[in-house]
C-alpha cells in the first residue's frame, strides 16, 4: 500500500468515526484495532496492543496531569478565587474597562494556580460575569476576557495540556512548562492593551462607575491576607521548577498539597470539598487518559504503515522553506482546532510533526509553544471550542452561540498575533530557557 493511501485511510478513518459521534477515545481505539489487524498479521498483533495500552499511562512523567487539574478544581470549589478577585479589585483604580482588566488580572493569577482551563473559565465566569452584566458591560468586554483569561491556564504553569503536549511530542516537560510562562504573560499584556483600546473607543461597552476607594492600608491588608498566600502555591510549582529544586512531578505534588493546605488555612477544607474535588479531578483525568491510552497504538500504526516516513520524505523532498512548513503545520492545527478536542489534535499531528521539526533542525520547544498557543486558541474557535460551551453554561439566558463567537473573535486574533510574535522572535523562547539554564 502506498504511504498516502495508508495515511488517508488512517486519518480519514478517525475523522469519520469521530464525526459519527463515537467518543474521541474510542474513535482512536476503533482505528487502531482495525489497523493492528490489517497491518500486523491478523489477531497476532493484539497482545502487543494490550501491552502498549498497559505502558501508555503507567508513566511517572504523567503525574502532573491529575495533580495540576486537582489544583484548579480545589481553587474553584473552595472559593479561594473569589477572595483573590476581591483583593485584586482593591488594587485596580478607575481605568477604562476596569472589570475586563480585573478579569485578565484574575485569570493570570488563577492560571499560575490552576492547570485546568475549564475550572479557570468557570471560576472567572461565575465570579465576574454577574457584576459585569449589572454594570452594563458589552459582550466583547465581558465574555471575551473571561474566555481569554480562562484560557491562559493552558500557558502559565501549572498547565496539564503543556505536560500532555510535551509527553506526546517527547520533549522535556520542564522546558515546555517554563518556556510557556513568558508567552503567557505576553498574551495577558496583549489582552490588556486591546481592552484599554476598546474601552476608550467604545465607552458605552464598559460604562465607568464609582468605586469605593480603598486606603493603602486596606489594599496591603487584602494583598497580605488573600494574595500573598497564593504566592506560596505559585512558588511551590513554577518557582521550584525554575530554580531547579523540584522536578515537574514533585512540584505538582507540592502544589496540590499546598492548595489543600491553603483551603484548610482559610477553613474551607471540608470532607465534602475534598471528595468533590478529587472526584471531579479523577473524572477529567480518566477522560484524558482514556484518549491517550486508546491512541497509543495510533502513532505506532501510522509509523508501521509507512505513512509517517512517506509523508516525511515527501515534505522534505519538496523545496519549501521551514518557515512555510511551520506556518502550514499551524494552519492545519488551527483548522482541526475548530472541530476537534485538543488531545486528539496532538495525537493525530505530533507523531507526524515532531519528526519533521527535528529533521528541519528547528527548536522543538519553540515549536511546541507556538502549537500550545494554537491549541489554546482552539478552545475559543467555533463550533467546538470547549470554552464557548462553558461560557454558554454561565452566560445569562438569551445569549446565543453567535454572541459568544463574536465576543471571542478579537481574542482569537490576539492569540494569532502572539503566535506571529514568537514566530518572528524565537529568541523569546530560547532566551527564557537560557536564562533559567535549561537551554
Amino acid at each position, binding site marked *: 500500500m502506498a504511504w498516502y493511501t495508508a495515511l488517508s485511510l488512517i486519518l480519514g478513518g478517525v475523522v469519520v468515526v469521530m464525526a459519527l459521534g463515537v467518543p474521541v477515545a474510542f474513535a482512536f481505539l476503533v482505528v487502531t484495532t482495525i489497523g493492528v489487524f490489517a497491518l500486523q498479521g491478523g489477531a497476532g498483533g493484539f497482545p502487543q496492543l*494490550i501491552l502498549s495500552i498497559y505502558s501508555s499511562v503507567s508513566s511517572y512523567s504523567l*503525574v502532573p496531569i491529575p495533580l495540576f487539574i486537582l489544583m484548579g478544581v480545589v481553587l474553584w470549589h473552595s472559593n479561594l478565587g*473569589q477572595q483573590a478577585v476581591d483583593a485584586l479589585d482593591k488594587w485596580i483604580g478607575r481605568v477604562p474597562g476596569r472589570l475586563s482588566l480585573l478579569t485578565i488580572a484574575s485569570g493570570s493569577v488563577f492560571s499560575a494556580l490552576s492547570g485546568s482551563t475549564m475550572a479557570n473559565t468557570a471560576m472567572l465566569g461565575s465570579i465576574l460575569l*454577574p457584576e459585569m452584566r449589572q454594570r452594563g458591560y458589552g459582550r466583547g468586554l465581558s465574555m471575551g476576557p473571561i474566555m481569554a483569561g480562562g484560557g491562559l491556564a493552558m500557558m502559565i504553569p501549572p498547565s496539564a495540556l503543556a505536560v500532555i503536549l510535551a509527553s506526546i511530542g517527547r520533549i522535556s516537560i520542564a522546558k515546555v512548562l517554563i518556556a510557556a510562562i513568558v508567552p503567557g504573560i505576553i498574551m495577558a499584556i496583549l489582552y490588556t492593551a486591546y481592552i484599554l483600546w476598546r474601552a476608550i473607543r467604545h465607552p458605552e461597552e464598559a460604562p465607568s462607575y464609582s468605586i469605593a476607594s480603598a486606603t493603602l492600608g486596606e489594599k496591603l491588608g487584602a494583598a497580605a491576607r488573600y494574595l500573598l498566600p497564593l504566592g506560596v502555591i505559585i512558588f511551590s510549582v513554577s518557582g521550584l521548577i525554575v530554580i531547579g529544586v523540584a522536578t515537574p512531578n514533585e512540584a505538582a*505534588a507540592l502544589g496540590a498539597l499546598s492548595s489543600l493546605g491553603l483551603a484548610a488555612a482559610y477553613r474551607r477544607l471540608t470532607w465534602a470539598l475534598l471528595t468533590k474535588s478529587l472526584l471531579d479531578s479523577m473524572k477529567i483525568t480518566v477522560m484524558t487518559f482514556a484518549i491517550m491510552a486508546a491512541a497509543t497504538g495510533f502513532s505506532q500504526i501510522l509509523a508501521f504503515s509507512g505513512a509517517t516516513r512517506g509523508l516525511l520524505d515527501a515534505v522534505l523532498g519538496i523545496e519549501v522553506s521551514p518557515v512555510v512548513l511551520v506556518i502550514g503545520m499551524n494552519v492545519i492545527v488551527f483548522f482541526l482546532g475548530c472541530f476537534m478536542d485538543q488531545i486528539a489534535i496532538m495525537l493525530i499531528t505530533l507523531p507526524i510533526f515532531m519528526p519533521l521539526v527535528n529533521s528541519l533542525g528547528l527548536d522543538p520547544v519553540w515549536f511546541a509553544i507556538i502549537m500550545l498557543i494554537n491549541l489554546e486558541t482552539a478552545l475559543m474557535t467555533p463550533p467546538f471550542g470547549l470554552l464557548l460551551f462553558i461560557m*454558554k453554561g454561565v452566560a445569562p439566558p438569551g445569549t446565543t452561540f453567535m454572541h459568544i463567537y463574536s465576543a471571542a473573535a478579537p481574542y482569537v486574533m490576539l492569540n494569532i498575533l502572539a503566535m506571529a510574535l514568537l514566530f518572528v522572535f524565537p529568541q523569546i523562547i530560547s532566551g527564557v530557557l537560557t536564562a533559567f539554564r535549561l537551554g
Partner: protein
Amino acid sequence: MFRLYDRLLDVLAYAAVFLLFAIMVATGLDVGARYFFNRPIGWVIEFVQHSMLLMLFLGIGWLTRERGHVAVEILLDAVPKPLRRGMELAALLISGATSGFVGWWAAVATWDNYARGVVTEGIYPIPRHWLIGVIALGLLLTAIEFLRGAATLWTHPDTDVHQVEAELETVAAPPALAPGSET
C-alpha cells in the same frame, strides 16, 4: 441486579479517587524524605506508575455510565433527528463492540501473563496480570455501559446520550456564590 452492578461501578470509581489522593501524598512524602532526610522512598515511582494505570481502568466504566467521554457532535447537531438517533445508536454500538473486543484480548493477555508468571519490570516487581486484569475489567465494564446506553436509547428514543454539553454546564454552573458576588 443492575443496582448491585451500579454500586460496583461506584466502588471502583471511589477506588480510583483514592488512588489519585495516594499519588499526591506518596509523591509529596518522597520529596520531603529526599530533601529533609536525604532518603528517597524507593517504591514511590513504581507505586505511582501502577496507580496511574489502575486509576484509568477503575474509573473508566463509571465515567462511561456518567457520559463523561468527550465526543465531537458537530455533525450530529446538523442532521435531522431520526438520523441523529441512528448515528448515536451506531456510535454506542461501535464503542461498545470495540471496548468489548479489546477487553476480551486484555483478558486473554491477563491469563497468559498469569500462566507464564510475568512480573513487572523494576526494583519492586509485582505480578503483571494484576494490572492487565484491571485493564480487562475496565474495558469490559465500559463495553457493558455502552451497550446499556444503546439499549436505553432503543427503548427510550428521547434519551440524551451525549451529555458532554450538559456535563459542562454542571461543571460551569456557578457554585454557591460567595456573599457579595450577586451585587
